[in-house]
């Protein structure tokens, strides 16, 4: 049984039909990436999974249990955590408070402290800035904070929405290495990216989205060798 499964999911924004029957699976321990151009429905897929924009049709299930009718704040309790598009850290909370917010639903105080140490191990930069306000961090640090904050919720599956957005290439590489480490430590990851090259570089499998539909799915290696994908998303002729 897949850890996370979407079956024929249709999502709307008002009258706009954003997802037109998405089906995908994420197995435990994988990094799965969704690639596609602007407006293909990548972020909407994540929002649908996390309950922020519930689907009008279709099923989302976690470990075989349906979660598509559950409100967003309860989906978090079940272990689906999101590092949202645009990072959305809390600008007027300190780094530490931001991380504590990630553990908002948890009550196991001792484990929270050790999880925070783990986040600081992954992102030593955050430790240096622990009492600084989130809004004063650089873009890269904010991205680290957003990922760290999601990790504080002990995710079964971590949803990452465009972690490379607006970052310098050096930083992108650094962030992707850390994502790989997080996965190696046992966290399942669903990664949405416009930077298809980087995403396919660390993912096990990938799905290609186009105008709300999945047009291709394969192993990451196969996708990066696929001619259409190379042309459309990897900038190769």
């Amino acid at each position, binding site marked *: 049984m897949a850890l996370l499964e979407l079956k024929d999911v249709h999502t709307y*924004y*008002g009258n*706009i039909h*954003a997802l037109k029957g998405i089906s995908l699976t994420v197995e435990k321990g994988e990094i799965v990436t969704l690639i596609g151009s*602007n*407006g293909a*429905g*990548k*972020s*909407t897929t994540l929002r649908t999974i*996390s309950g*922020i924009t519930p689907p009008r049709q279709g099923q989302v299930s976690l470990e075989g249990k349906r979660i598509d009718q559950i*409100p*967003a*704040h*309860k989906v*978090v*309790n079940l272990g689906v*955590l*999101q590092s*949202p*598009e*645009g*990072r*959305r*850290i*809390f*600008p*007027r*909370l300190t780094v530490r*408070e931001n991380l*504590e*917010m*990630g*553990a*908002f*639903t948890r*009550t196991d*105080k001792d484990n*929270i402290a050790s999880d925070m140490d783990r986040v600081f191990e992954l992102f030593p930069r955050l430790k240096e800035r622990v009492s600084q*306000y989130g*809004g*004063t*961090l*650089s*873009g*890269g640090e*904010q991205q680290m904070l957003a990922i760290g*904050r999601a990790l504080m*919720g002990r995710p079964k599956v971590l949803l990452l929405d465009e972690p490379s957005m*607006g970052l*310098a290439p050096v930083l992108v590489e650094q962030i992707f290495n850390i994502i790989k480490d997080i996965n190696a430590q046992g966290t399942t990851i669903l990664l949405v990216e416009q930077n298809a090259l980087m995403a396919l570089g660390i993912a096990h499998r990938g799905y290609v989205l186009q105008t709300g539909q999945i047009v291709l799915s394969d192993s990451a290696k196969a996708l990066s060798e696929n001619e259409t994908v190379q042309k459309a998303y990897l900038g190769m002729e």
Partner: protein
Amino acid sequence: MGNVRFGFWAGIAGLATIMIVGGKTIWMVALIIGLIIGLLSANNDTLHTPQQGARFGAMNGLVAGAVMLVGQLLRSLWIDNLAGQPVLELGMGAFGSAIVAGLIGIVLTVVVASVLSAGQHLSGLARTLSVGAVVGAFLLFLPQIDRGLGLAWLGDIIPIMIFIILALGLNIVVGYAGLLDLGYAAFFAIGAYTAGMLSSTHLSGQFASNFQLSFWLVIWIAAAAAAVFGVILGAPTLPLRGDYLAIVTLGFGEIVPILFTNLDSIEWIKTANGDPLNLTGGDPGISAIAPPSLPIVHSFDGSLAMIIQLISFVLVALAALYLVRRVLDEDRIAGKSTTLTTVVGGLLALLLLYGFFYGAKIGDATLAIPGTSGAGQFLPTERTPWYYLIIVIFGFSVFFINRLRRSRLGRAWMAMREDELAAASMGIDLVRTKLLAFALGAMFSGFGGAFYGAYLGSITPSSFQFDKSVLILCMVILGGLGNIPGVILGGLIIVSADIFFLNRLTDLLKQIASNSNNTALADFKASDYRLMLFGIVLVIMMLVRPEGLVPSARRRAELHADGDVTKQENTTVFDVEQDAQLSPE
């Protein structure tokens, strides 16, 4: 050495007060300014040790005291002559007396400010005790000081305290949860009317009964009613944000006083004489609201009333206990012990029960409580017991709101204010969190409203108009959104300007006019200019110090971003708010 700008401006405020009010004002003002300097020294990040605190307090107190000495001289040598008022006479002529009075004032300011600022920078229990002792002693002896100096300020201090409590409540909604509420006076009205209906015979009289509930019970019911209406009026605003939310709350703020004006003839409910029910008293409102009395229950109509009161007291005590535990039990992340809050709640409950049995035993027997009638009833003419009562309510509010801020719920509000979507992704239930903000914010206006009704003895819909909502909102913004000391200071400044300074200034000008036969001056009423002055102050504030007088550290960081913020690569404090929520990605 140090920054004495704060002391200077505090001194200017003192100077203005001394010049306007005169008499022995200077000593009271010296104490108050000393307290304010001491309390706000806690917000100064450059102070770390008690010694630094004491030095800061002393320097600022000295500067403030010196400015006030100048004020005393101006008053004694110039204004007193203009107004033909007796000068402050200490037996050494106008000049000598002014100098001596001013020197005493300097000593008072310096001592209070330095002791309190030193205490602020102790740690843990020592800090709580020393600050509590200084502030507590001042609040405790304020009526005696007031009487001793012949000032008769209590009549102004009580309404100031009521509005500060309201501002603290609104601060929960606007400052903590970030929900702009332009109709907060509606909840104040609901609290006051609930109390008015239950503790006067306005309603029961129409049904040929003389049923009246005790203030001690009614204040909880009023708070609960306000909280319930907070939820009812908050619910439709849930999907709204920012400007839209503000407009809806504005609408509610308009509707509620109009409802209270018009619900004076309800056809489908008939009274004992077959007339339509007069629920709210219409324009004249509700009068003859019973004042509180000590002992808490002082008389009974019979055993049934006694049983009803007993049961209600037990219920109220349990509800209070539950509320205190339920809300404050939420700070597991902060790791705060809940024992203290349980103890406080338990004591509160015991006190209520004790009051009941004590009252039941002695019935109408005389109990010697100063300032109350034989049966222990608060007298409208004697302010002292009212003052102590409002101080207790104020202390409870500050304690409760401070705990609330640091609780789990407080954190949820903060996150929601920063970014609703991100807060939801952290597992925060936005509906529950928002409604609790409305409910708890409204609850404090319920306390304020119940006290207000009992204190004035009558309430009218005109006391709860839009201008009150704006006034309360201005206190919160002027003082510093989201910061309890700031909100208290903002309330103190705005309400005292409104009901104290302008009235005293009008009186003073009248005296000067009659002394000099200046008719133009005699017609000048300073209080007519209140809204204009108010507007000017707000415009200046928003331009010069948009974060308020005593901002919370967060707002200061946001509005006065220093170089190190902008130097960072692509800083994005605000672009996270550029939310493309409704468009597909």
